[in-house]
């Protein structure tokens, strides 16, 4: 199976030097670091970039393509600001790939950035449309955590199952030089941490992070001129559901529907029939530990209801059946909203090139970046990349 996106290649990637509370840096500083690292990594100059896409979720980080144009001085070319909640960066990457696949441009850049700590406060600032009283009280952790009681009732999910996700992702992230947290946590620490929302304690929640990431994207035939170890795109799934999940009687809180639907699209494009056998590693959206457990199930790495067991048994470890979040994930690496999708693709790219900065999944050939956004799963973006298709 082939389609036009299979001709798309990534030849360079970069990210802000460190993710986390970057009080001393602006969004411009973060994009400066990510953008020029990506161009240097690819061996291209700013004047080679013909078009750009920048993922940003919060308007206070920046509006319009100029947020990307100014720090990199990429003036006079088409640049589009993409916003799709936590998938904003993934959608920037997707649109950049589609533009190259269309033949309109030969060389483009996708990037994402978020500068959340300038706004302070507890938790994430409010995002998007709001109503004064309807849906009031919802928070990011509660929106995802509402799945816990349903999952517990149907499948016996436990508090400990959630904690194992944090332990695994911190063990991975501790080894990554750019991660927000560079430390491991114990099961006991996770369970005893104060509750943020229901069963989700402080260590079950991703932190508030600043960061940026960028990718240089071109066609396979051009990529060969720049490097031998470029990676190629096998699939780009994107599925949008609703902003009103707790008002939809058909939403059962047992699966993140956009993940299921985006995975269906992506696996069809990539010709993947058994993801557990065919995918070596996956950067999976783990804004909260429970989010990762449902995602592992929804992506088909295990049966519905067995996600907790899958993690607990070590099957999601870097050397397990499939490495889930070898970077440390949002949980430990950090989650600068608009940057995360591109950051995941950057990590998968380096894993497939065998030059992971943290823990390396040995022999990785096929990797996934999975991004879920909205209050409990409104939108999901999935990219599947390969180091095996360069000559196909």
């Amino acid at each position: 199976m082939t389609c036009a996106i299979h001709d798309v290649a990534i030849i360079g990637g970069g990210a802000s030097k460190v993710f986390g509370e970057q009080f001393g840096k602006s969004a411009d500083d973060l994009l400066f670091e990510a953008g020029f690292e990506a161009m240097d990594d690819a061996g291209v100059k700013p004047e080679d970039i013909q078009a750009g896409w920048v993922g940003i979720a919060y308007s206070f980080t920046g509006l319009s393509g100029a947020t990307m144009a100014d720090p990199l001085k990429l003036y006079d070319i088409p640049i589009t600001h993409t916003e799709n909640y936590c998938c904003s960066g993934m959608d920037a990457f997707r649109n950049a790939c589609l533009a190259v696949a269309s033949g309109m441009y030969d060389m483009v850049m996708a990037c994402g950035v978020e500068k959340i700590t300038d706004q302070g406060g507890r938790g994430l600032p409010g995002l998007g449309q709001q109503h004064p009283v309807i849906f009031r009280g919802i928070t990011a952790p509660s929106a995802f955590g509402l799945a816990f009681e349903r999952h517990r009732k149907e499948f016996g999910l436990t508090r400990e199952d959630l904690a194992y996700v944090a332990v695994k992702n911190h063990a991975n992230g501790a080894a990554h030089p750019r991660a927000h947290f560079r430390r491991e946590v114990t099961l006991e620490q996770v369970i005893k941490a104060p509750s943020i929302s229901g069963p989700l304690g402080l260590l079950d929640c991703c932190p508030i992070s600043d960061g940026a990431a960028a990718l240089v994207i071109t066609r396979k035939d051009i990529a060969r001129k720049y490097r031998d170890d470029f990676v190629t795109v096998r699939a780009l799934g994107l599925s949008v559901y609703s902003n009103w999940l707790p008002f939809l009687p058909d939403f059962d809180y047992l699966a993140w529907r956009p993940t299921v639907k985006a995975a269906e699209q992506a696996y069809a494009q990539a010709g993947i029939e058994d993801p557990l056998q065919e995918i070596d590693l996956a950067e999976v959206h783990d804004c909260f530990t429970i989010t990762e457990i449902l995602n592992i199930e929804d992506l088909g790495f295990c049966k519905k209801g067995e996600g907790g067991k899958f993690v607990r048994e070590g099957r999601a470890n870097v050397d397990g059946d499939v490495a889930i979040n070898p970077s440390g994930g949002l949980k430990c690496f950090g989650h600068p909203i608009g940057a995360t999708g591109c950051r995941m693709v950057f990590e998968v790219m380096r894993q497939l090139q065998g030059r992971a900065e943290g823990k390396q999944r040995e022999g990785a050939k096929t990797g996934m970046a999975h991004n879920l956004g909205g209050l409990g799963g409104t939108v999901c973006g999935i990219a599947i990349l390969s180091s095996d298709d360069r000559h196909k």
Partner: protein
Amino acid sequence: MVGIKSFGAYVPWLRLSRELIARGWGMPGAPGTLATANFDEDSVTMAVEAALNCTEGLDPSTMGGVFFASTTAPYAEKSVATIIATVLDAPAEAATADFAVSMRASTSALQAALDAAACGKADNIVVTAGETRVAEPITSWEQTLGDGAGAVLVGEGDGVIAEYLGSLSLKDEIMFTWRRAEKDHILREYNARMAQSEGYEKVMVRAIRGAMEKLGLTPESVARAVFTAPDFRSHGRIAAKCGFNAAAGQVQDALFAFVGGTGTAQPLMMLANALESGLKEGDVVLLAHYADGADVLAFKVTAALAALPPRRAVNACLAAQHPLESLAKFMRYRGLTAIPPLDDFGSPVQTWRDTAQVFPLHGVKCNQCGFVRFPVDRVCGRCKARDDNTEVRLARRGRVFTFINDNLYPAVETPTTLTVVDLEDGARIFLQMTDRVADEVEVDMEVELTFRKIHSGNDWNHYFWKCRPVRRGGE
């Protein structure tokens, strides 16, 4: 025949023991409790609850008026009667009026409603009063004032359960208790002894005796004397002076023991309590209420009282209660701390546009597939029928589908119990849960809806619905 056609009351779920107040300040305490509005309750939400209890089963389109009385309305300029009428789904043409400032506002409203019914101007007028007066800490008033609401339905015809016989009013200028407009949050007083004896006792006795004389009644002919008082002791002092025999059950309990003095709401709550407590056809009820004078109204119970379906009033509310565990919470709820109220996103434009959703909680039902949903949208999420919906009043009962006790939302009190509820009509709705023990919330728990204050963003009160565990008691 003109008179009262139904009644209801509301007593908040939380009760503060006087012992806890006494221990907090190291002073002597009286027995009993004070009914205390939760942080999301005020005179409006309690009056809504009493009015809903009073009008259970009544077709809202027949409501001819909604009168609200309180000295603790949330606004100095802005009608509350319109909020309540909108929640009740009363027609736009129903008369709405706000009675305020004097604690006799409730009996003024009741007389106005009776007069309107008597002259044929309106039928089925809901008269409701809610009160949340705040006492100065470390005074006897602190152990006296309680929160609550009462309601009666006034009108004419066969449905009258207590026929209006007549009334008498006296004015009496005195500084007893007061709060200065825009200046005082807590109750002021100067010399309670003078006010109790020269004000309350003398004026109340004179008014009650005068009313009986005017209406041709004797103390013996009164089956139930429903008279209010500023405090427990004063209430006990005047029965004998009016010729009533408290020991023989002739005097209606003033609710000081477990509820406290509810100001404007007190006469309506006591009247509701009388009407649910063994009165029979032919019984004469004397209602007397004091504040800067007195209003006395007399009623005669009709055969229709026995036929009225059971109402949720004082007895049912007293059966459902939960202890408020600290004086600090009580003080925060009463606005006696420097902690500002919850300031969340507000928009008068959105609230106005969505009035039918926010106040009477209307959703839509698809005319093609019957899917009932909220919030209102144009295209059916199930069958995709376009703009083919009927606006419906959503069910007020349901079950918890899932929930979480969240500590992140900056509420007055955490955790905030967030629930996803399946209503009995099939609609699903996200609601905060109130009046619950957080650790006892469960999936599949039965809940009922209650109208509450959600936050005070933009410097005005945003009201909406919450759910709470179904209240048992009084059935």
